[in-house]
């Protein structure tokens, strides 16, 4: 094949080369996702593959991802991996990995892995991946842990492979510390394989273009992306815009506060005033918090440019040390998403007058509700599997929020039939809750009601993660609140987090929150109200009370 010319000033060549880099990350994503044992990897897409330049800056990321990964891998590489293991300490075939929450993504199950890519004996780039392992040891019910040591095993940045040979000592320690050693080993192997795919394909790409390095290409991509973000910010008026949200937490309530400062072509978010860190595992570390800050701003300012280092450079944030958004290192943080998932909604609320057509109402899918059903089969073996449930998306400036949508995460739920094959549970219904979407010119999406009944002879423990059962999702630009979530056991209200025991025949009712509305409900087009009535998504009473419909028409 003839060599191609890598003219980085040519808009066409650059687009072709850029697309190719993303494709390389996507190929690795394909290998990782399809061979993973971890249900959370394949169903929730809780993993990422990223190509980094020789400085550890993100060059290209796989297309499908979730918000936490927008910044976590390059930050880990630049601040930790490349500092601990400088190029002179590495050899071809080495693989570095850690699950330290301070380095990676804020909780132990996520392993961050980086593989140097060599050309002519020199490191020219890194292949990186993060995946949520099926188990990491520690207490089975992570959210009741009171410090990080209860949450599982922690290994610092180590050479998982040395010159292509697995570091068996480390792997043996990991295997001995987890409940599912074969699956954990399998998923670590998947990550190694995914990184290798990126290395192989990047070298092929460099060969085709007759290049020996990627940093100059990275500079061009980063520069363009950064300019794009900065010019979008420059269209917003300078100023500081604030919002706050109150969450159930465990008890007491948790308050989060945001002050979003737009200054020329950069944005800083200060979370001062947010609640202090707590004993339970909902503390949200800096890397997780920043990812959700950057995610929310990218959605508003430049949703189209494929993510890379330059897209998020103009965003910074901070939170007081010791607060729930910047906790001390020993704190528990496994279920950090219960707090962190709400950050985007809070930023949207702060900016409702700055970017009214871009922001959306608060979403009932923030955070994910998860029910981990655990128990014993008649033959004495254990079963255990997680089912997820989402509330409605917030209303949008041009349309209603979607019903039951994973946001800001992006998690598909397991089919009821598949779930019932592995867990002796009967899902008695999974249906939309009329009137649960917050009223608005465009209303919030609907939440759902699901009923889970224990069919087994022995008790079932459901470890439940839920939120927004006390204070509803808020609307924006004049939109109204959605309906709060509810958790009931045998029709009686139940504490919505932690272990819930179901004896044979007992049932748990989960009602996820509805999304907040967008805009004044009185401005809602009449034909949309009529269609909602026809479909039973709102009741005639709501049409009259919330939308000002004449009684005889409703």
């Amino acid at each position, binding site marked *: 094949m003839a060599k191609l010319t890598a003219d980085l000033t040519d808009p066409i060549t650059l687009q072709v080369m850029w697309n190719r880099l993303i494709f390389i990350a996507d190929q690795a994503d394909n290998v990782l996702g399809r061979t993973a044992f971890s249900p959370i990897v394949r169903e929730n897409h809780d993993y990422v593959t990223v190509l980094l330049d020789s400085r550890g800056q993100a060059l290209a990321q796989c297309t499908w991802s979730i918000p936490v990964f927008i910044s976590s891998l390059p930050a880990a590489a630049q601040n930790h991996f490349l500092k601990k293991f400088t190029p002179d300490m590495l050899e071809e075939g080495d693989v570095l990995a850690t699950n330290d929450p301070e380095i990676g993504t804020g909780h132990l199950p996520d392993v961050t892995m980086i593989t140097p890519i060599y050309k002519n004996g020199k490191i020219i780039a890194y292949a990186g991946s993060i995946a949520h392992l099926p188990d990491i040891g520690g207490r089975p019910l992570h959210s009741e842990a009171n410090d990080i040591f209860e949450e599982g095993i922690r290994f610092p940045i180590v050479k998982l492979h040395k010159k292509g040979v697995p570091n068996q000592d480390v792997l043996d320690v990991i295997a001995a510390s987890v409940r599912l050693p074969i699956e954990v080993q399998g998923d670590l192997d998947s990550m190694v394989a995914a990184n290798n795919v990126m290395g192989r394909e990047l070298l092929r790409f460099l060969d085709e273009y007759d290049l020996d390095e990627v940093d100059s290409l990275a500079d061009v991509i980063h520069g363009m992306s950064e300019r794009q973000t900065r010019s979008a910010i420059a269209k917003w008026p300078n100023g500081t815009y604030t919002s706050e949200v109150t969450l159930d937490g465990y008890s007491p309530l948790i308050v989060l506060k945001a002050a979003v400062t737009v200054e020329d072509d950069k944005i800083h978010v200060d979370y001062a005033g947010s609640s202090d860190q707590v004993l339970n595992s909902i503390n949200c570390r800096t890397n997780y918090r920043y990812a959700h800050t950057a995610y929310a701003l990218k959605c508003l300012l430049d*949703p189209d440019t494929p993510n890379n280092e330059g897209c998020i450079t103009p965003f910074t944030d901070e939170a007081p040390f010791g607060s729930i958004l910047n906790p001390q290192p020993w704190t528990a943080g496994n279920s950090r998403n219960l707090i962190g998932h709400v950050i985007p909604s809070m930023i949207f609320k702060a900016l409702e007058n700055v970017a009214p057509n871009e922001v959306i109402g608060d979403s009932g899918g923030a955070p994910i509700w998860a029910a981990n059903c655990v128990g014993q089969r008649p033959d004495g073996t254990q079963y255990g599997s997680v089912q997820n449930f989402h509330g409605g998306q917030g209303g*949008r400036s041009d349309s209603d929020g979607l019903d039951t949508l994973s946001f800001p995460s992006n998690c598909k739920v397991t089919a009821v039939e598949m779930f019932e094959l592995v867990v002796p549970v009967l899902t008695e219904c999974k249906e*939309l809750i009329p009137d649960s979407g917050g009223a608005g010119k465009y209303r919030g999406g609907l939440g759902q009601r699901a009923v889970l009944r224990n069919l087994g002879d022995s008790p079932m423990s459901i470890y439940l993660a839920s939120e927004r059962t006390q204070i509803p999702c808020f609307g924006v630009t004049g939109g109204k609140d959605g309906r709060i979530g509810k958790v009931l056991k045998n029709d009686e209200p139940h504490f919505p987090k932690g272990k819930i025991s179901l004896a044979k025949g007992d049932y748990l009712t989960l009602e996820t929150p509805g999304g907040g509305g967008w805009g004044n409900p009185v401005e809602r087009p009449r034909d949309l109200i009529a269609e909602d009535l026809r479909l039973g998504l709102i009741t005639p009473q709501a049409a009259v009370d919330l939308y000002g419909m004449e009684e005889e028409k409703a």
Partner: protein
Amino acid sequence: MAKLAFDTGGTFTDFALLDDAGDLHLHKVLSTPLNPADAVVQGVSELLERYESSVDRETLQILGATTVVTNSVLERRGAQTALVTTEGFQDILRIRNEGRYDLYDLKIQYPEPLVSRAETYGAPERITAEGVVMKALDEEAIRDLGRTLNETGIKSVAVSLLHAYKYPDHERRVRDLLSETAPDVYVTISSDVCPEVREFDRTSTTVANAYTRPLMEKHVDELAHAFCERGIERDMLWMTSSGGLVPSPRAAKLPVRLIESGPAAGAVAAAEFGRIAGETSVLSFDMGGTTAKLCLIPNGEPTIASELEVAHYHRFRKGSGFPLKIQSIHMIEIGAGGGSIAAKNPLGLLNVGPRSAGALPGPAAYGRGGTEPTVTDADIVLGYMGTGNFVGGSFKVSKDAAIAAIDKLAAELGVTRERCAWGIHDLVNEAMAKAAAMHATDLGVDPRALPMVAFGGAGPVHAYGIARKLGINRIICPTGAGVTSALGLMIAPVAVDVSASRPMRLDAWDSATVKPILDDLAAQGRDVVAAAGVASQSIEYRYTVDMRHVGQGHEISVTLPALDLPQAEFLAEVERRFYAHYIELFGRKVENSSIEIITWRMRASGTKSEAQRPVTEVVGPKALKGHRTIYFDSLGASVETPIYDHYALAVDAPIAGPAIIEQRESSIVMGPEGTAHVDAKGNLIIDIEE
């Protein structure tokens, strides 16, 4: 025995007739979208008149590929349909799987479900995963429902109850009760359409079937009636998405299985053209006005996937459409074709698509109101497509209009006209090459090793550039590139795919359970294939299973060894095949982990036919038609390039690149690194030197 094939497309309905003397004739008429049967009847009548003496109508077999099913979904022209689910699950079509197909786009939408919430009804009943009836079916409630359907003017109803993939009793009873109380309503039950686990996908498939069934049934009836009047006695056969032909009654009852009818026929043809050219494995590339399809054909046969997606809200964005659990030829569709629009994006770079000018207004060169530059306009500016020979010269196009559209974009980007046009052509090629590489990686194949079979209006124009990007060194351009799908129908075997989800671990194998599953699949398949006139001794049965490691979520397909092997040997061979395929796909083996089967599948088929060379295209004396100035990137300049007539080229005479070889509906581009010749069957073969 004569065969007549028709392929109803968006613009043209294509025909191929193999007469009793073994001669192949091609034909084409304009499609009649309001009633697609009109164009079919017109074309068939014209061919029968023209070749009256060489066709015995009593034994003539008519074969069809159709867009009726796919268009009624895309254009929402299906019947007014209702859905019956297990009570408590009426919102299944709105709840979907709760995921998003784009991370950053806050304004994503999904297509409006084919059945609304107001027309969805809950059946009081419940069966568990183990088959225990938790709640008996309330028969009176179903009878009431039947009466309600009558009153509301519903024409078709889909019934999809939980765990019916394995325990269909309640579904069947609902069908019988509705048929009693609402005899004019078509009833489709999920256990008939796709008895596979995962309720959203199965329901989505069942609904699509119910929605399209009245239209397809009417279409089939109308054609049967019209052919009968013309003295044709045999039942028609129809192309399914999986590349096999089925008899009319099955096509009418399970139309959702015909949703990729035409593209499947194209892939079958590509496999055959590859075989004729002496190649076992090929990459099929079919590019038209709005989309392109790529299909990897290893060992002479397309691979079969067990799901696909249609009616994407966001053009060709995976996850934004209706999932369908049907057997279909594994191909990937790229939302780029001749009509894709090129524009400058916010970063100042060139983008091609996803917007398309479609057939109307079409490319700027068509002069039907389009002013934005499209891929076709770029191809015309580069000289790859002549303006005098569009659809055999019957269609007028303007090079000036193409130039004007490209110049405007070139000025915005600050590049020359040629650079801009080449950029558009090259970006599309890049998208195709990327998709091909992804598709190949999916199947664990290195695309560079495969020759490419290129057809469709734009396929041969772009094949050369794509092949160069992928490192492919041979391109096969079949004769009759515009009617390839119709030719595929002539070749395809009668075949039917059936399946059943019955999870089973290999280390807990129970032959007493397995045997009835396989026997039942065989019986279902045999009935359909025999009904199409295949003698029972020539029916071939092939069993495959979807397998994975226990605990994984993604299954891979494995062909079962001979069923009469001793059990230990049989299981060892299944395991060996699973691991071999797993390593092929993912490059490594997982140790110490059990493996399991999720779904059992069987294909029963008759035999394939061979392709014939069309006799309508006579080899003429004047192959060289003239010269044009044409741009080639590897030369960095436009050069005087010879233009040949494909059908006038002598067999085996070499042509050196660069050259353009024109067909009636397409144009084959060959760069300076290529050498071409026509083979004995009339196909043009390009070999690329590096």
